C-alpha cells in the first residue's frame, strides 16, 4: 500500500513534469511504458526541458539506469527465471521490485518480485497518463508553479537516500559540481559531470 501510494504520486509528477518540459502526452506515456525506470525518465525529460541535446538527455538516463544492472545481477541469483520470461523480468527490474524481492521471506521472493512488478507497472503508467493529461489541460506551467514541482520531486526522491554521511557527501559534491558547471557548459552536461562525484570511491579503499 505504501509503495502504491508513492508510485502513484511519483507517476503523476512525472507525467506533469514531462508535459511541462515540452513532451506530448504520447511521449510521456511511451517513456513510462518502454523506459520504465523513474529517475531515468525524470532525468531524460529534465535535460530536454532545460534545452539539452538528445545525447545529453539519453546519457543522463543511462547513468541513472545503470544501478538497475546491479539489481538484475542480484535478482538473477535470487530468483528462478528462465527463458523468454527473463526479458519480462528485465523490464521490471527497478528499485521497488528489487526492494520487495530481497526483503521477502525465503521462498516468496519470486512471487514478491512479479506481484510488485506488475502492480507498479500498471499504476506507474496510469499515473503518468493522468499527470500528463492534467498538465496538458492546465496551461502555462509557470503560473501553477509546476516548474518548481520538478526540483522538489527530485529532492524528495533523494532525501531518504542521503541520511548517512557518505551518501550525503556524494550528493552534495554532485550538487556543487552542477552549480559550477551550469554557466560553463551546454545544458544537460552539468548532470553528467556530477557523476564524477563517485570517482573518489573507485580509487580509495
Amino acid at each position, binding site marked *: 500500500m505504501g509503495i502504491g501510494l508513492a508510485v502513484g504520486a511519483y507517476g503523476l509528477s512525472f507525467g506533469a513534469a514531462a508535459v511541462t518540459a515540452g513532451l506530448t502526452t504520447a511521449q510521456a506515456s511511451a517513456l513510462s511504458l518502454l523506459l520504465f525506470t523513474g*529517475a531515468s525518465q525524470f*532525468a531524460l525529460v529534465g535535460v530536454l526541458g532545460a534545452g539539452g541535446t538528445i545525447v545529453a538527455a539519453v546519457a543522463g538516463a543511462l547513468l541513472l539506469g545503470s*544501478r538497475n544492472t546491479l539489481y538484475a545481477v542480484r535478482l538473477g541469483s535470487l530468483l528462478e527465471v528462465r527463458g523468454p520470461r527473463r*526479458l519480462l523480468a528485465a523490464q521490471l527490474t527497478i528499485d521497488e521490485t528489487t526492494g520487495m524481492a530481497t526483503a521477502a521471506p525465503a521462498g516468496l521472493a519470486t512471487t514478491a518480485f512479479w506481484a510488485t512488478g506488475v502492480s507498479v507497472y500498471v499504476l506507474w503508467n496510469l499515473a503518468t497518463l493522468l499527470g500528463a493529461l492534467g498538465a496538458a489541460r492546465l496551461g502555462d506551467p509557470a503560473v501553477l508553479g509546476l516548474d518548481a514541482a520538478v526540483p522538489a520531486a527530485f529532492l524528495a526522491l533523494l532525501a531518504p537516500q542521503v541520511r548517512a554521511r557518505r551518501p550525503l557527501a556524494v550528493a552534495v559534491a*554532485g550538487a556543487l559540481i552542477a552549480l559550477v558547471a551550469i554557466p560553463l557548459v*551546454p545544458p544537460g552536461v552539468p548532470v553528467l559531470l556530477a557523476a564524477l562525484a563517485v570517482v573518489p570511491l573507485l580509487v580509495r579503499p
Partner: protein
Amino acid sequence: MIWLAVLLGSVGCFALKLVGWSVPPQWLERERLQRAAVLLPLPLLAALVMVQAFGGDRTLVLDARAAGLAVALALVLARAPFLVVVVAAAATAALLRAVT
C-alpha cells in the same frame, strides 16, 4: 527529435537491465565498483535538483523556483510525504508569482 531520445533511452535502459540478468553473480563481488554504482544516482539527482531549480540559459537564476525548493527542503527535513513536498513547492512558486 524527442521521439529519438525516447526510443534511444528506452532501448539503452532495457539493455542495462538485461545485461545484469545475463552476467554471472560473481560480478557483484567487485566491492568498490558496486559501492560506486549504488551511490551513482545520488550526485545525479542532486545535480538535477540544482539544474531544475537554478538553471537558466547558461546562467544561474534565482527566481520563484528557489523559494519552492526552500519550502521543499524544509518539508523533506520534516519527513513529509512525497506528494506534500511536491505540491507545496509548486504552490509556493505559484503564490510568489501571483503576488509579485
